[in-house]
């Protein structure tokens, strides 16, 4: 790292930061692109179909159609980029970025591997070093920003279906945020801190000490709320293609649509990383006390990708909720449940556990 830094005429700290930026954002971005393929192939398999398997490099190398995202991307680039006549042009252009940036930013604070010492300097495998004072409050705050992407896209399209979709999606996101935050607060409380590295080290390497075992109720609430937060089925009220055409992205085409679609998958990745960190011990490897750096990264990736798969899996299992059902579930089930969870753990802590 020092050699690389001197080659680039920067300090090692900056070189390390840039490397991390490329790894994290590039990784999440390419995983999100890959996950569009996983979603399509997975859904096909679930429905006894085959899915896209014919896209091939140079017309020859098929590798299970894995280059499909690439083909999609090229296609999106060359599509005509229409802006509706009566759309609010500035906001219409801004919306895909407003959707994508928060989805990617949430990942910044999550440690994706254990910290290591090399050459007398400690390296942390997270974009923001532990002890930055924001901790896990940061992804929660950024997650709240994600509403703007959907809402601005919907509003600027000047299309009633879009506005309907955007409005109800943002309402859902806002109401589920409370249940989610209370579930996370319970973790902060039992951990005694809100830094992700603290949360991870408090969980330890033994699976039965992870938060999933300690707070299953909190996990269910958090998990459900994550579906509402990421606008995935069963709570995909932003899109709802059988009801409101294509919802908030009806008027979008070309690369702008691609960015909106990718932002959903980036959000999914961030959400699964959050779930792995909060409830499944982050980069901790089960039963291994001091894992190597690579092993911890692999463990984190496996957990994260598993949850990303569960997102896909659930999407193709459950039908969409009705809007009133969603609101009832959010306010009458998720919020009380997370409160019960909070109070129960507060009571347990007061009993000295």
């Amino acid at each position, binding site marked *: 790292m020092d050699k690389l830094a001197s080659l680039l005429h920067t300090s090692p700290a900056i070189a390390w930061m840039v490397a991390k930026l490329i790894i994290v954002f590039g990784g999440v971005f390419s995983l999100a692109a890959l996950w569009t393929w996983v979603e399509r192939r997975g859904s096909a398999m679930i429905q006894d*179909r085959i899915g896209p398997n014919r896209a091939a490099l140079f017309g020859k190398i098929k590798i299970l159609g894995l280059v499909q995202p690439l083909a999609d991307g090229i296609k999106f680039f060359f599509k005509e980029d229409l802006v509706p006549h009566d759309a609010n042009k500035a906001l219409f252009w801004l919306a895909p970025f407003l959707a994508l940036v928060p989805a990617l930013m949430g990942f910044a604070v999550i440690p994706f591997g254990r910290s290591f010492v090399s050459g007398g300097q400690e390296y942390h495998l997270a974009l923001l070093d532990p002890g930055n004072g924001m901790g896990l409050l940061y992804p929660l705050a950024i997650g709240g920003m994600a509403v703007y992407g959907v809402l601005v896209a919907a509003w600027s399209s000047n299309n009633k279906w879009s506005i309907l979709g955007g409005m109800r999606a943002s309402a859902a996101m806002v109401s589920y945020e409370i249940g989610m935050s209370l579930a996370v607060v319970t973790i902060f409380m039992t951990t005694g801190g809100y830094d992700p590295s603290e949360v991870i080290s408090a969980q330890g390497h033994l699976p039965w000490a992870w938060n999933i075992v300690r707070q299953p109720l909190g996990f269910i609430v958090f998990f459900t709320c994550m579906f509402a937060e990421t606008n995935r089925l069963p709570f995909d009220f932003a899109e709802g293609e059988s009801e409101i055409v294509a919802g908030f992205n009806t008027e979008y085409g070309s690369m702008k649509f691609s960015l909106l679609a990718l932002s959903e998958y980036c959000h999914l990745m961030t959400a699964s990383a959050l779930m792995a960190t909060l409830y499944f011990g982050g980069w901790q490897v089960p039963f291994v006390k001091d894992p190597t750096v690579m092993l911890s990264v692999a463990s984190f990736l496996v957990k994260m990708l598993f949850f990303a798969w569960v997102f896909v899996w659930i999407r193709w299992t459950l039908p969409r909720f009705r809007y009133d059902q969603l609101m009832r579930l959010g306010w009458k089930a998720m919020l009380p449940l997370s409160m019960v969870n909070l109070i129960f753990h507060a009571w347990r802590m007061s009993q000295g556990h």
Partner: protein
Amino acid sequence: MGVVVKKVELSWLDRTYVWPVMVGMGITIQHFLKQLFTPTAKRFTIQYPDMKKEMPEGYRGLHELKRFEDGAIKCVACFMCQEACPARCISIEAEEFSDLNITQGFEEKRPAKFSIDMLRCIYCGMCEEACPKDAIWLRKDYEVAAYDRLSMQFGKWDLMNTYTEVDGKESISQDPTPSVPRRTIAL
């Protein structure tokens, strides 16, 4: 009185919603794994250009005009198929030929032109049923397509050679015996 719809009583386990979701996820993952570990050849989907469907017995596909071993056409130009055809896609012109031989029995009539308009044909199989000599068969080839309308007009030699590759027969483009000018019978 209308149909009485029975209300389903949900057990407390179903009311939690979490358990039914997990059951549903079990079903979908079963399908997923089953499909994942099924070899491509055994899946429901037939990946068309690479794999082709084996058509069932009695399928009515592209026609073939049958021939004798020496390559002479079995058709005797009786016009039965042309009459039977509901789509009126068959048109025949008959001719006579002199050289009687054993395989052809004693017929001395054959089609000079036998054309089927594949754009009109409805593959009903009436021509096959009408034929007294079993000379026209509707077989299993279903890939009847072309880039222009003219190439969908199948002539006598096209129809005689439609299944040569499948059967491993020779492709022919000439009758073994020449035709003779029409005899005029003096009354």
